[in-house]
């Protein structure tokens, strides 16, 4: 077990290193002088020279990278051009909001996805299977930002049941677990849950169908085990993979929440990214992407380790 964790950890380090290089290069692939990313366009020549030296843009790229990593490891992600505040503090609050949304969406998606997938796999080729497959293909094909818009049109514009945007009354960003705030969470969470729901339904359906076709299931049935008993065995065999897919989906949602957060003006990391793009705020863009990507790397690692604990067969593969 320990050796597997160490091996997996050793594989993660070069990936994290590569991710940091990609994020570092984001500022440098941007057209124009990287300085334009930290200075207003009307800055004086003297200020430009000072800033160039301060940020180290006059040094060779590997040195710049080293300095940037040192700063980042100390929690300094630079300063947002648009607001003048440190990127790290802007990110802190936003990350919490996105996590809340993504975790809730993953839970809803997992619940309904595994239900659909299980029923479809259990009653393979029946009308229920076809219906569930149809629902899951819609889940993976629908442009979720459009689905969000349609839900807003139905539940906010037409029915006036739920708020269309924001995370609290009057656009306040302070969260509380009361109905006034939770109302704001419903539409974005449901919209977001459609993606993992489709993928988890497909995965679970394939898993259940495969497990049911294995000999040990016939063996259990021959032994006289009733459907419920068989069900227990199927769940036990399908759970590790299904949970692993769920973990990865959470990571995808965290990183991919920008479109849904833009639709709902949800004050999370995606919304922050949208602002960064709109205002060409490159330090904010770079910092947010770095944190989200590292989150994803860490999540991948955790998922692999947890899966290997639940299912010892994974280690041997």
């Amino acid at each position, binding site marked *: 077990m320990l050796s597997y964790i160490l091996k997996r950890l050793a594989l993660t380090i070069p990936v994290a290193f590569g*991710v940091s290089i990609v994020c570092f290069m*984001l500022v440098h*692939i*941007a057209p124009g002088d990287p300085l334009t990313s930290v200075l207003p366009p009307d800055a004086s020549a003297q200020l430009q020279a000072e800033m160039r030296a301060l940020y180290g843009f006059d040094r060779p790229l590997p040195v710049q990278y080293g300095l940037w990593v040192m700063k980042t490891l100390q929690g300094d992600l630079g300063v947002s051009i648009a607001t003048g505040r440190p990127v790290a503090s802007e990110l802190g609050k936003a990350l919490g909001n996105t996590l809340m949304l993504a975790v809730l969406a993953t839970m809803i998606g997992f619940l309904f996805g595994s239900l659909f997938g299980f029923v479809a796999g259990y009653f393979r080729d029946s009308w229920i299977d076809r219906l569930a497959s149809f629902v899951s293909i819609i889940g993976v094909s629908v442009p979720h930002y459009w689905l969000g818009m349609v839900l807003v049109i139905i539940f906010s514009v037409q029915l006036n049941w739920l708020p269309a945007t924001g995370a609290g009354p009057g656009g306040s960003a302070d969260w509380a677990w009361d109905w006034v705030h939770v109302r704001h969470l419903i539409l974005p969470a449901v919209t977001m849950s459609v993606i993992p729901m489709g993928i988890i339904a497909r995965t679970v359906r394939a898993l259940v169908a495969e497990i049911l076709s294995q000999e040990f299931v016939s063996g259990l049935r021959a032994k006289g085990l009733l459907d419920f008993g068989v069900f227990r065995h199927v769940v036990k065999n399908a759970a590790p993979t299904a949970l692993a897919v769920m973990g990865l989906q959470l990571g995808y949602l965290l990183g991919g929440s920008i479109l849904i957060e833009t639709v709902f003006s949800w004050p999370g990391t995606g919304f922050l990214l949208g602002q960064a793009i709109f205002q060409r705020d490159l330090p904010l863009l770079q910092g947010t992407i770095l944190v989200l990507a590292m989150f994803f*790397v860490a999540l*991948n690692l955790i998922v692999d380790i947890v899966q290997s604990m639940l299912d010892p067969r994974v280690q041997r593969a």
Partner: protein
Amino acid sequence: MSAAAPALTAIAAIEKSPGYWAGVIRRFRRDPVAMAALIIVLALVLMAIFAPLIAPADPYRSSMIRRLRPIGTPGFPLGTDELGRDMLSRLIHGGRLSLLMGVTPVFIAFFIGSAIGITAGFVGGKVNTVLMRTIDVFFAFPSVLLAIALSGALGAGIFNGLLSLTIVFVPPIARIAESVTTAVRKIEYIEAARASGASAFRIVRIHVLGNVIGPIFVYATGLISVSLILASGLSFLGLGVKPPEPEWGLMLNTLRNAIYVQPWVAALPGLMIFITSISFNLLSDGLRSAMDIKA
């Protein structure tokens, strides 16, 4: 002359054999869902190609006095947008950029990714390690985040959007190509070919390519739907296509504020993205089962 003759007989032999592809086509034609998806995809492609001939009006002509008319307005069957432009014409023209932005990245990534993956899988060893570890780095980004990071840094524009999306789709295709090639390389006839003195290039061309390109291709077609949603998503965020070009994602963005005035007109461009994406998905599923490729 003499060198060309055996090659010609080889081609003739392939054409004569009722074989694999005839079976694939036969199975595909028996699948009503896949056939319907194929027809819709073809219709969308034709619509995009002949947009100027089909569209009833100029998609750029705006008018301040007929903004945001509802669906069913005489002369404007699908209403007008926030600048009074004919929605039907803009949706028809929008297919051009949306399809181009969605399909091209996967198409280019198919070639680049296959080249990387087949090289890594066939050569193996250190080359494999270096190539695949580099690919792993890009896998560490959720695809939406990577696309947005790259085009966010590069800035808006069609070329930057295409470039970002191509970079997003190379790693998954390379990974599939690598795993399929590694599996094929272990089959005995490759060893036999090598023992008979065939060069590596010849083995790849004759023995490997034919066996791996099918699964890679089917996998790539499955990515088109993701690519379409992502490409329109970039334009929706103000990256990718710039106004006043008609493009479904961009139209959805500019119509967002109109949901309180003409909600269903505002939702139309997204419906087009949805129809296109689900058709490509069903088409890919149909191809997969017709070609009998497992996941």
